């Protein structure tokens, strides 16, 4: 019974026309309390973000964007290096005799490319760690 009365009162409040229904309500105290409650619930909570919050978030988003761009760059660099390595291996494999006199140079290039790939990976790993720490 009590719950039915409460439900009815809440329905009246939700209808947005409590004034029209007010005279039919016997429990004026409950009605007034609900009226205060419903208008109070529409008011925003106290406080809000600190002034620097937006810039903090946008800075993080900027870092995230830069990280995505870096990843794209690393992927492209990685693909280029791998294609280069495959290409050179093929040349060495199919033209071993002709290439033999350039072997030293080729080995140096291969070592350079592999080192570059390794450096990029290590750099990326530590950058990720740094970004996580900064968060």
């Amino acid at each position, binding site marked *: 019974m009590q719950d039915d009365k*409460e*439900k009815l009162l*809440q329905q009246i409040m939700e209808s947005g026309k409590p004034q029209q229904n007010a005279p039919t309500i016997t429990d004026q*105290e*409950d009605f*007034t*309390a*609900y009226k*205060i*409650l*419903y208008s*109070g*619930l*529409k*008011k*925003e*909570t*106290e*406080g*809000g*973000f*600190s002034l620097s*919050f*937006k810039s*903090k*978030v*946008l800075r*993080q*988003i*900027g870092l*995230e*964007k830069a990280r*995505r*761009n870096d990843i794209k760059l690393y992927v492209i660099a990685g693909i280029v290096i791998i294609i280069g390595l495959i290409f050179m291996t093929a040349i060495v494999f199919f033209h071993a005799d002709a290439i033999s006199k350039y072997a030293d140079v080729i080995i140096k290039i291969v070592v350079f490319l592999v080192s570059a790939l390794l450096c990029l990976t290590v750099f990326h790993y530590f950058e990720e760690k740094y970004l996580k720490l900064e968060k």
Partner: protein
Amino acid sequence: MIDEKEIIPRIIKGDIKAFSLLFDEYQNLVFHVAKRMIQNDADVEDVCQDVFIKIYKNIGSFAFKSKLSTWVAQITYSTSIDYLKKNRRHYIEFVSDDDKDYQTDDHSPADLLEQKDLSRYLNEIISELPSPYRLVITLFHLEEFSIQEIGDVTGMPEGTIKNYLFRARKLMKDKIKLYLRNDHAGR
């Protein structure tokens, strides 16, 4: 009001200005949901920061099947829940049928009466409600989400949401009634 269909592709392309517009539009929603769930001011900003970063990272997966506000609230809700679980803070996932278990602390309305501030008192009693009550009340009344949208955000069945709304309002109404009685008695 931002045009979601125009702004989302811009954010996906990495336009920070577009994201700034989205931030302005939804900062209150994110703050209200996180604040009502976490309550501790110091932690709320950390969680909200995570929420906005998640929004940026995952905006590409938004399929326009719901309102963007529902999706944003969903991310805020799940991030807040994760945070509460991780920090092992008090979180009541299911609310008992007996509201007597959740009567608000009677640090009496009389104390607060001295402040003569009904809206502060209202915030006080909201903060003392169980977490799911606070959440549905905030989404329904403050953010004007429909019951279905609240269901999309929280995963709660419609009947549960209606029940939580009803019981939360009743609890708060009883407190306000007491407040008013004491207020009149004090005059």
